């Protein structure tokens, strides 16, 4: 069983600990977090504000390094790579969706989606990006700039950008946090839809219980410790 799990694991955290120094002394934000995620699985990361969810997400995506422990993305040990090495891994294997969208204001919607394709060396970035923009329902807004889009539309562009490279893992940090509940619902639908169709592994930090309920698995964090790991009943 455990052998089988390791074979299919796309993301593994082994005893991940993160400490930071602050004026009040060393703070332990994450301690000894260990888990592993299967290919195609959708995981909700839940916990109160300040529990360490974003910190864990950043470590899993290689945006930062843990103080101790290892993170494996596929068969690559992220903790052994330098910054450019981790960037290269992200370019081909990782997608992001953020709470505040993070679109580049100086590029139009299509160009924003083309960006990771170009970074990853896609042969036809414009064509690929146009196709995926159509899939998220924004085929008519290709040349609009972020400032001309609504919040929901911006997040759609961000999702298109995240899925454009067909990443193995997609990380989302409170993707619906800045949206009203109806728009949030539609965005969640879109993400789960893409997740199913491209068998991307989904890791979502969320406070929205309906989104958490739609995930295959729920990881609960409390004060930097992993306190719950529940599978959705089949």
């Amino acid at each position, binding site marked *: 069983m455990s052998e089988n799990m390791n074979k299919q694991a796309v993301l593994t955290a082994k005893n991940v600990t993160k400490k930071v120094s602050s004026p009040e002394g060393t703070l332990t934000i994450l301690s000894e977090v260990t888990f592993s995620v299967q290919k195609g699985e959708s995981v909700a990361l839940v916990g109160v504000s300040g529990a360490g969810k974003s910190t864990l997400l950043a470590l899993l*995506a290689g945006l*930062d390094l843990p103080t101790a422990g290892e993170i494996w993305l596929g068969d690559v040990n992220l903790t052994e790579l330098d*910054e*450019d090495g981790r*960037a290269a891994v992200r370019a081909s294997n990782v997608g992001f969706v953020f709470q505040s969208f*993070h679109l580049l204001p*100086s590029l139009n919607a299509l160009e924003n989606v083309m960006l*990771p394709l*170009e*970074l990853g060396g896609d042969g036809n970035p414009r064509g690929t990006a146009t196709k995926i923009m159509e899939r998220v329902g924004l085929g008519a807004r290709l040349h609009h700039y972020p400032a001309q889009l609504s919040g929901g539309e911006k997040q759609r562009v961000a999702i298109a950008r995240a899925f454009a490279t067909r990443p193995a893992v997609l990380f989302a940090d409170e993707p619906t946090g800045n949206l009203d509940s109806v728009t949030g619902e539609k965005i969640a639908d879109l993400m789960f839809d893409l997740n199913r169709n491209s068998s991307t592994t989904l890791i979502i930090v969320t406070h929205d219980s309906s989104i958490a309920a739609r995930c295959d698995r729920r990881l609960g964090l409390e004060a930097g410790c992993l306190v719950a790991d529940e599978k959705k009943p089949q």
Partner: protein
Amino acid sequence: MSAIHYALRSFFRELRSGEVMVLLAAVSLAVAALTAVGFLTDRVSRAVERQANEVLAADLRLRSPDPIPTEWHELAREYELRSAETATFPTVVFSGDLSSLATVMAVSTNYPLRGQVRITEQLFTDQRIAEGIPAENTVWADAALLARLDVDIGDTISVGELEAKVGSVLTYRPDQSIGFASLAPSLILNSANLNDTGLVKTGSRVRYAFLVAGIGENVETFYQAFEQLQPASVRARSREEGSDRAITTAERAQRFLSLTAVISLLLSAVAIAMSARRFAQRRLDTVALMKSLGASQHLVISSASGQLFLLGILGVVTGSIAGFLVEKLVVGLLGEFVQTDLPPIGWGPVFLAAGSAFILLFGFAMPALMQLKNTPPLRVLRHDAMPPPISRLFIGGCSLIAVTVMLYISIGDSLMLLLVLGGVLAVAALLYIAGRILVSLLGRARTGVGIAWRYGLSNVSRRGRDSAIEVVAFGLGLTVLLLLTFVRVDLLESWQQTLAESAPDHFMINVQPDERSSIADIFRTNNQAIPEFAPMVRARMESINGEDVRERRYPMEDGQWMANREQNLSWAKSISPTNKVVEGKWWAADYAGEPLVSLEREAALELGLSIGDKLTYIIAGQKLEATVFNVREVNWDSFQPNFFMVLSPGSLDAYPSTFISGLRLAGNKEQVLTEVIRTHPTVSVIDIGSILLQVKGIIDKASLAVQVVFLFTLVAGLLVLFASVHATIDQRRFESAILCTLGARRSTVVAGVLAEFAVIGMVAGFLASLGASLLAAAITVNLFDLEYTPNMLLWAAGLIGGVTLVCASGYLALRRAISVPPVAVLRA
């Protein structure tokens, strides 16, 4: 993907954003200032030099004791220069029974190469510009000579064996101030007649001068080539009484133009530094996102550099166009003055400006770019994640190297570079320290004041390093602006003095003691101011401290010449108002003891003399020993009769003396002067009005150029102030939004911001006034050779200007930020 591709694509859209605009403005201003000032300084200084050269009647005047060999003319021709020669000697000329001592000058065809000879057919009336030189067997003689010989135009006079016809009255020759110590009336004849006079024999006192003129660089290369073969006896460019004045004015104008250029550059440098910092800071988010999407550090830094490079190109293009237009405008204003046969402006200044702008841009942006490279990608999730701070030493080093290299390339004047750069660095350090102290003091002082002030003051102290940098930027901008304003005022004032209404336009020389009263009578009956007479005794120096002047060694080459020439001595009870004692003190008004002498500073330096040295003169065959009692500085700009050596009262009583007087004539001056010459045939009148006009011409044009270039600097200064406020706009926008959300009224937020700026402005203004006063003192004295008078206005301008400029530009930059609805800011 290619970084350049990305840089290009986003560049033009980002152009509209504030920090890119400010950076672009700073770069193009630097380029515009450099090109315009480069073009202008070049042209104006050439024009000024040329006008000053009129005093030499050439661009270069080489004096020789021997006849000018024809090879010299050939050499000049090789360098595409025009050449001429003169031979000058004193002799007695005759007409019938009458005779007079005269200075004869034989001139060759092209004379004068600079300036014009003016002649007239009637005494002291409308003169006209002479075409060419006197025809063979014809002379042009000045009025005094004609009066003494009692001849008119068309009459014949004898110069040695030559019988020549008087063609015209000579009223002006450009080089008349050279050697006007020789005082005798002058006469010009054609050099073809020189040998016919039979006066040129071995041992005769003929002095030859070789004149060349042409394009500046050619004159220089010619002189370099010439120096290789010139005999030691040749002196370049006579430096004699009176000829220095126009040159000093020209040199000062040039120096001021360069100073203005240096300061405009420093200001643009500060503006570039401030906006480059922000340029990089604004890219932090973009870079973090690019990195999270998988961009490498290399890509990040090369796309940012690519954008910076594009920005530089754009700045260079717009800046050089602006610089070119300004140059056109100024040249238009200056008119003929700068346009006479100068080579066309080249691409030189543009390349220089472009190079400097790029050095500045990258020098200042480099540290920020390096930091940008290290932006943690984590920033996409935690907005407070910042790249590790960069060593201040590195930042300082980069900027300092950039500025120094650039200044060194553009301005060769190392003394100026040292003074200005050293001064500015010292002021910057002072400002930074003061800024930090201010920050910590305000941190403590902020309780016990109203909400606006508390908010404002706490802002200053919380921003810590940023506030200190703001103080530095504001302060530096103000310092150099104040510096330039007040040095400019000093300079213009000193020029104004030169042109004072009272400056004499004629000199009357060779007045005998008993002629003083009869001459005074002529002036009185014609309602002219009575002239003041200064005594003058001709002397030679025999020995210094018992050592023969011919054998003595002198600290400067000019000393040898100064010691061996004929001296004009004078005596005085009290010091002339245009003189100032710099060493020792003036003698008591009733002093009647052993002879004392007061030396002019340059003369003392050249001769290597100091207080207590004993000088022995030979005057009319008798010896006179005098002790050096003080050293004096002479304001030659005053155009008053002045002397290198002035003796104590009574010292010269036993010797034959004549008198000299500077005259300022109004109204019927022809009549007065004709009457003086007719009734006192031995008296000579020299017209220096033309020199005065010449100097006035230089000054007028130079001041105009100075004012125009100054405007540039003003713009650069304002830009710095704006850039430094703009640099903190993001944070302030956010803060004021939060305050408004918390229920603060807009007016409270505005008042708070103004309070913050007022404090910064005051501190910066105070230190800027201090720095500018010290620097101005150092610069006026060392670079312009002028006296420095402390100016309270500078302090007022510094403080008031500091507070209002900082508040106004701060308010302008923030107005929009403050008026945006808070939601818009918080949600963005």
